[in-house]
């Protein structure tokens, strides 16, 4: 018997439990496979959107209106941007106030608990229901669908996202900054406005931009509120054009040209949202920002 054989046959550490090891390897392979599936889905979805979208893209898409010939979606792109802007004007300040309250003023009582629960529930409310609410609050009294109602529905979505991001970012500002400021005789609001908010502004801006990216892609809350518009109408008191609504409308149509437009519109939408999101993610990599 050679030394070599002794080493392999009598080594006490060599494979006593091959079954265990094979199960372990199998599990590892399955986890890797799951990741591969997830990434493949992402790749396939993006590839289709990219290829189809570019295939059907025309200059007219960006310059013309839906009923012109050749057709375009200029008004829808502008409409979505304005709608999101209006929603931000409503939702961002409110969200920031909530975040500031939770990070700086809230104690540990039932009210804080309630506030956090409400934020979580609001964040989890199906967005179509927020459309229903905005419809009831704005469309019914005004007797017509409008940009305002759509912006309100989107603002409802933004509030909890911005609040959460602001709260987390404010909490990340080190306690010594607050102590130093208070120790110098600053009032609480001076500390907040002159030290804490400047220190947290990059993170809060990130949260706001993620919220913007999120609502830019929303469709369901606009169905009963903004409604859509084929004209270049940008008065928020009237039915409002929106890229997502147009995609929805065209995807339901039998007209092939319209379906093609829908693909291009989805590409434009996804490009806007993804470039935005990826840029934000890249800018704050390493720092923690929750989107869900």
């Amino acid at each position, binding site marked *: 018997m050679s030394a070599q054989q002794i080493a392999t046959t009598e080594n006490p550490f060599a494979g006593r439990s091959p079954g265990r090891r094979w199960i372990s390897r199998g599990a590892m392979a399955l986890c890797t496979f799951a990741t591969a599936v997830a990434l493949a889905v992402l790749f396939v979805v993006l590839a289709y959107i990219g290829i189809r979208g570019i295939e059907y893209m025309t200059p007219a898409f960006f310059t013309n209106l839906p009923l012109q010939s050749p057709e375009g979606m200029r008004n829808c792109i502008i409409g979505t941007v304005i709608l999101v802007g209006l929603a931000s004007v409503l939702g961002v300040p409110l969200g920031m106030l909530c975040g500031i309250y939770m990070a700086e003023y809230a104690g540990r009582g039932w009210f804080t608990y309630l506030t956090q629960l409400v934020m979580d529930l609001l964040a989890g409310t199906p967005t179509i229901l927020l459309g229903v609410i905005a419809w009831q609050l704005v469309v019914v009294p005004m007797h017509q669908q409008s940009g305002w109602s759509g912006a309100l529905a989107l603002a409802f979505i933004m509030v909890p996202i911005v609040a959460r991001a602001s709260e987390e970012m404010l909490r990340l500002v080190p306690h010594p900054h607050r102590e130093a400021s*208070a120790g*110098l005789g600053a009032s609480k609001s001076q500390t907040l406005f002159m030290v804490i908010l400047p*220190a947290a502004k990059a993170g809060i801006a990130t949260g706001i931009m993620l919220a913007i990216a999120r609502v830019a892609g929303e469709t369901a809350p606009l169905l009963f509120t903004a409604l859509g518009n084929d004209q270049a109408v940008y008065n928020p008191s009237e039915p409002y054009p929106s890229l997502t609504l147009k995609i929805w409308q065209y995807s339901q149509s039998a007209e092939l040209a319209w379906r093609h437009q829908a693909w291009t519109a989805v590409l434009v939408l996804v490009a806007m949202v993804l470039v935005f999101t990826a840029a934000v993610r890249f800018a704050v990599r390493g720092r923690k920002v929750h989107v869900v």
Partner: protein
Amino acid sequence: MTPPVSAENVSRANGAQHGSHSAHAPRMIPVAPDQHVKRHAIDIKNLEVFYGKGRAVHGVNLQIAHGEVTAFIGPSGCGKSTILRCLNRMNDLIKHCQVRGSIKIHGADIYDRRTDVMELRKRTGMVFQKPNPFPKSIFDNVAYPLRIHGVRGKAVIAEKVEKSLRSAGLWEEVKDRLHVSALSLSGGQQQRLCIARAIAADPEVLLMDEPCSALDPIATKTVESLINELSKTITIVVVTHNMHQAVRVAHQTAFFYMGNLIEAGPTDKMFHNPEHQQTLAYVTGQFG
């Protein structure tokens, strides 16, 4: 508002000998609440501090001499930092922290219900254990206390900033990069910046909570000589872990143990001829 103590400051600055205090009757001894002793900046009576239900400070009576450096020494958890933080009511920021007794600064009760803590903290600067400059420029850090207290005018602020930085011995090092982030400074420089920031609004008292514990020996030495320099114009209370530091910088020393003030007096006496056995044990390094 002119501090009522400026005459005192002038006399100090004119060369009153710091070492001469041993000739006086000891001014800084624990006193009964009703006993009236003059020439002190801070008068602590029956001070008790609770964190929730636990008592961190047990009925401390202490008077802190005006225009001198007083060191608080004692082992970790003895309550020395807690007491320091009562002097500018920083403990207000801690929930469940309750303070009883009275503290008077130049005769004014700072635990009066109507006390404006902003004013109190303006007049009592504080330097913390770890340098904590704001993530702003060097200039803006020092200008911050001026701005929050309503000082307007670029020239006035610039002048005050320069004066504070000079007092903190930092001017020559940073005068060419005032608008660079304060975080780019070394640890020792950051701490001196924090000192400059703390004295920018001309406080009457400077509270220092282990200001050198995060610094290397050379930076520590710089800060210590800065304390000596500043004590010519300002009352300083410094909490320290380092007994050698107390000997080097303090005229008066107070020794705390388990939330009690054991003994206070001139530093020389405290380290060479203390009244209490515990003090002797501590200063000779038998525990701590």
